[in-house]
């Protein structure tokens, strides 16, 4: 089982190729990135995100032969994600492997392996028949989780919240899970309460763009509502995290994107009403049941 979203960005012969996630599921096209300007354009236009933006950052460092400048530019473009921490990871790696290219290669290979291990750890604590509600897209990791569940004799089916306004749930997650012949249904974002109430789902799994040592997370807009409702219905809510920091979640900038993007996937040409577009929301630790970190640490509330 493989999803192109598991490795959406690659570095080959001095050029970065980026899977254009905004074109999925209609077509699988790739964009060439040759310098930092191209990379920032791809990043700002949401052509790639999640694990894709992590890879894009690593490879941009290789392309530019520079870490800090790239990190600052990435941070400015997508202020909620912690690119400065990724920069620290690269710097640390270059202490043992002086070649930037080699250091990044090692980090990336290690990351994928860690994601598979994390999937196995999560699979171990999920119910024997896991009916999983999810939001947005976790870059192929749900496929790893499904495989890990199957390996230990557990069954799984997914409910995917469509994730307006960019519809990453329907365009990416539904697409990748269906491609892998995994039982999946899409729901409208506002149906999360209904599928919890009628017993269709018995757990929730999401990714996180940021997390703190205390257990608070920042993730795609809609995550907080999902966690709060899961808490109300006593449904466990699990989060995949990466290297939580000892910070106050309230200090992190929540990116607000241009309001016209709210209508990007709708038919018609407007005029559209005045709109809000916070890209992310904060979910406090008290509404989360378990944290499965890329470092291998598993914590349950």
């Amino acid at each position, binding site marked *: 089982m493989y999803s192109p979203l598991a490795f959406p960005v690659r570095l080959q012969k001095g050029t970065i190729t980026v899977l254009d996630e905004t074109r999925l599921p209609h077509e699988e096209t790739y964009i060439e990135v040759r310098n930092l300007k191209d990379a920032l354009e791809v990043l700002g236009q949401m052509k790639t995100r999640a694990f894709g933006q992590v890879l894009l950052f690593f490879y941009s460092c290789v392309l530019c032969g520079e870490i800090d400048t790239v990190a600052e530019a990435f941070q400015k473009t997508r202020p909620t994600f912690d690119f400065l921490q990724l920069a620290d990871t690269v710097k640390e790696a270059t202490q043992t492997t002086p070649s930037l290219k080699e250091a990044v290669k090692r980090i990336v290979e290690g990351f994928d392996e860690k994601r598979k291990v994390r999937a196995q750890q999560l699979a171990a604590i999920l119910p024997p028949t896991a009916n999983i509600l999810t939001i947005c897209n976790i870059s192929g990791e749900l496929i790893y989780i499904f495989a890990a569940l199957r390996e230990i004799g557990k069954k799984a089916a997914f409910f995917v919240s469509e994730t*307006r306004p960019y519809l990453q749930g329907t365009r990416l997650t539904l697409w990748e899970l269906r491609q892998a012949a995994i039982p999946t249904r899409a729901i*409208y*974002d506002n149906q999360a309460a209904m599928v919890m109430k009628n017993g269709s789902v018995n757990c929730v799994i999401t990714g996180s763009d940021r997390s703190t040592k205390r257990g608070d997370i920042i993730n795609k807009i809609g995550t907080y509502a999902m966690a*709060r409702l899961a808490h109300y219905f006593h449904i466990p809510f699990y989060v995949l995290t990466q290297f939580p920091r000892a910070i106050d979640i309230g200090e992190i900038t929540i990116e607000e994107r241009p309001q016209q993007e709210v209508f990007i996937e*709708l038919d018609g040409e407007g005029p559209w*009403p005045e709109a*809000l577009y916070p890209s992310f*929301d904060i979910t406090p630790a008290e509404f989360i049941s378990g944290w499965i970190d890329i470092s291998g640490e598993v914590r349950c509330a």
Partner: protein
Amino acid sequence: MNELGEVVLLWGVPSNKEITMIKERGEANRDLCVLVPEMRPHCLGLEVAKRLNKGGIKHTYATDNMLGILFYQNKVKEVLFFYKDVRDDHVVGMCGSLYVCLLAHVHNVPIEPVRGDAMSSRSFRAASSLDEYMRFQYNDVLEAADEYVPMDIIR
């Protein structure tokens, strides 16, 4: 988002009479911000926004999954729930009604039920080309039925 005043969140479709009521509230409280959620699948929020425009009421649009953060930040002061019917100790509203009412309930935000416009959402076409794609590609239509909200949540 920081500039939002006291948010009154509209869920469902208000009739012309109720539009007048919303306008009066806005005139009485200049800090009031009328929030119109999208109301998937048919994006009825766009229709409500048109009606508010006609009535000269300033408003802000948000997708349904953005409501959580507004409750979290204590922006939402009241939900006006334009329901369709009352049956068996439940208030019946369009798809998503349980989502909105439960979010209000867990954040201790009052919900005022008001009988809404009886217009059928079936008269609206698919709001996104992706909806059509899904139908074609996966032979999959998401069902969007009316939802029953227990009366005790609204009280």
